């Protein structure tokens, strides 16, 4: 934090020299250079122009920053960006197919699961990981899966409804919706 004039400019400069990595972002090969202290959250929002991923704490406590790293949900505020070299990241921006919404996206908004929408990107990514693992989760399983994603608006009920409904739709083969 305090590497400034105090502890020698040279050190500060090393700390700030950008690093460069290659990774897959929403299916696209991407090359990016950034300050090495950055988290994956910061990398996405500040260097990859993907501000869809949100932050509510930057301490791993709220779930708003959830993205998929090699298919697994992670809190991007706790992942160092340099660790993502060669890996694949999926964010909310990659969910829709062109202008067609993913079933989870359509259900979440149609059934009231997204009020202010701030927890929504993290919620969607958590739900996507769940449905990929378990195509027909019970309501209780859905609640467990999203227990680390705090939402202050909805009281969760309509989010659970939406994930349940999207799961049904995906099982029935509907990949995307309006």
């Amino acid at each position, binding site marked *: *934090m*305090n*590497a*400034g*004039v105090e502890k020698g*400019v040279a050190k*500060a400069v090393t700390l700030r020299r950008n690093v460069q990595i290659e990774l897959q972002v929403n299916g696209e090969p991407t090359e990016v250079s950034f*300050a090495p*202290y950055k988290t994956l959250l910061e990398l996405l*929002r500040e260097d990859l122009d*993907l*501000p*869809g*991923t*949100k*932050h*509510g*704490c*930057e*301490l791993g*406590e*709220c779930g708003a920053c959830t993205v998929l790293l090699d298919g697994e949900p992670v809190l991007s505020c706790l992942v160092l960006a340099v660790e993502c070299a060669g890996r694949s990241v999926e*964010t*909310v*921006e990659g*969910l829709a197919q062109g202008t067609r*919404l993913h079933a989870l*996206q*359509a259900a*979440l*908004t*149609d*059934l*009231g699961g*997204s*009020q*202010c*929408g*701030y*927890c*929504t*990107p993290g919620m*969607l990514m958590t739900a996507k990981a769940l449905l990929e693992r378990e195509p027909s989760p019970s309501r209780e399983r*859905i*609640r*467990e899966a*999203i*227990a*680390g994603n*705090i*939402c*202050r*608006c*909805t*009281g*969760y*009920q*309509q*989010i*659970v409804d939406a994930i349940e409904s999207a799961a049904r739709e995906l099982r029935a083969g509907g990949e995307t919706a309006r």
Partner: protein
Amino acid sequence: MSGADKKFDVVGKARRRVDGRGKVVGQLRFADDLVLPRMLHCKLLRSPHPHAVVESVDVSRAEGHPGVHLVLTGEAFPVPYGIMPVSLDEHPLARERVRYVGDPVAAVVAKDEQSATEAIELIAVRYRPLPTIASPEEALANPEARIHDYGEQGNIHRNQAYEFGDVEGALAASDLVFEDLFFYEGNTHLPMEQQASLASVEGDGKLLLQSSTQNPHYLHRQLARVLQMPASQIRVIATPNGGGFGGKCDPGNHEFVVCKAALVLGRPVKISLTREEVFYQHRGRHPVLMKFRTGVSKDGKLTAMHLQTLLDGGAYGSHGPASTFYTGVLTPVTYQLPRFKFEACRVFTNKPACGPKRGHGTPQPRFGQEVQLDKIADKLDLDPAELRLGMVTEPGSLTASWLRVGTTGLAACIRSVVERSDWKAKHRKLPLGRGVGLACSTYMCGAGVAIYWNKMPHSAVQLLLDRSGQVTVYSGATEIGQGSDDVLAGLIAEALGIDTDAVRCITGDTGITPIDLGSYSSRVTIMMGNAALQAAGRVRDQLAAAAAEALDTLPERVVFSQGRVFAVDDAGKAMSFVEAVALAEAKFGTLSAVGSYTPPKPPGKYKGAGVGPSPAYSFSACVVETEVDPATGWIHVPKIWIAHDIGRALNPVLAKGQVIGGVYMGLGEALMEEQAFRRLPPKLSDALVHRNPSMLDYKSLTALDMPEVDVTLIEDPDPNCPYGAKEVGQGPLLPVMPALANAVYDAVGVRVDEVPVTPDKVLRALERKAKGEAARVGPEAFPEVPYPSPTFVLPPWENGDGDELKGADGKPVRRERRVATA
């Protein structure tokens, strides 16, 4: 405007909200998502002392730090601000004094957040600590050191007393008088989005602030004041709020700071508060101590109530003057109460300022009132639901305090939750450890008066149509997640017989939208809605006149529905909406209309009668079921039933979502949420620090903790509201806390007269019960508060005229004199 007999195309249909898509694709831009070329970043230095004189601030080392562009201190801000004109007691950066741990003292603007954070630590501030006030009791006992040099006296910020009819007389004549003390701990909004603001100087030289604010209009006024600039040179855009709940109503220090910095540097400056800072910014629920003395007759009718409240206001005024009123004024709206007296006092303490949170000032007394009613029912051996049903206020009636109750669905709400929860089979009948509790509440549909006194409309809407069929609606209302844009589009679409897709909403921008006072006091649906319908009605008249000519019919026979415009009695005479717009544009010129709304004048005339009146009141009733483990005190809530009198649900998906969200937040307050402080040892500066300023430690309900909520919407359209729609954003939170406490009593027979109701309190009460002591945990004493002698007003049924009693000299007669001369 009730349109009770109208068939609706849009209203009442479940629809995707108009801003829904942007949210699920990650395209909606919140304040911190905004980036401008040449943008700099700002960080605030905050006081580690709860109360101290700022002797000096040395910024030289910070200014020399690499990447730093500007360091600001209190010197940059000589003019104070405050959301209420009577409490202009804050400076963006402290000048001589800091008043709570977290009070901003200086700001650094740098090329990135990292450099700004480093530089903040290079600022040297010399503080001289002052004695600190931690609680209302300490504030009352220690008029010195004064936290502010204004207020009633010592550390009392506001102090007020009102009496509607002779309450002592009525209590003396009552069969029974119940006296109870309650305490409601403070808690905070915890919006998922941390406050963020981006200020810039636009190409035309004017200041632009894009900020997560609920009230761009009030912020705009305060910016003009503090920056000493004409308001016309400032534009505030309220970015979509990632949750507000009242926490983004007050202008924030950071908002002034980034504006000033942008003006000095000529470059965009952004700030995004950390989560810890959001906890210290606060402006949330006031901790309130309450004393209720309530008279009842043997058959369960209220005779009179004397309510005293003591609010812990924290370090600044904020909305405090209003909050103080709200701990009393809505109390008489739910049940017939012949006489009512309330005394309320707000003190300053050295903690983050309290302000408005969902329900503003009313959840605390509602908790006390509804738990006390449960005790009354118990004592009188009456069913708590029947007791309440026997005394709900009549539609259109006046309260003792001269509030006009409009439509009320409270009885229907009670009956609904009683039936759906199978209350009769459960109450006092479930086995030990399981219980049900019931409670009710009411809330306003918008405050009857603005925060600053003026005679202008509270909300205005402008509509612009063109030959493409495009309908653009401009409103100053702010989307904070509650769905105000959807309400706006839905009402316009309904009035013009088109789809919401055809309506473009431009909202919350003081540079281009007509004024709306903001997203607070559940006012938007009613006030913006009525203004929107007026504007739509005016445009519709023009469209109807033009279409009637072409269709060879009369304008009053023209119908607008589903994108078509046709004659009511001849479906063959029809055209598309777009054709009608083109005809009207040819006939009248460019099509545009404005609408505005001002709430009705309140019936009360006494000084202070402006707080509490509303165009309408919503009502709710709730049953909570609990399972309480007598061994651990652990409380599990398997299910909640709630009925809310909404007048009419404009979009049922959203309305239901507001109800469930309100229940969620209420249950969190009931069980666990606490904005509490602890004192560090003297060698660590005696500081009053937040006990749990993180999302992990500030407990809130997760998806796993949240019970199923059974929602019933009671629809009885209110004539003062757009298509009859009342508020739903705040009311449903209110009955949850008392219903939970009453359910705990039903389960294990102990009273926790305190919020939150936590397992340790339940256990303590159970231990007391086992020892044969009073089976109760809660406050034991109410301090001596120097309330003023009350303003005395006769209730409507005692030949009152709505004004305070005045003597021959025209001065108000205080109760003492009236009694003496009676």
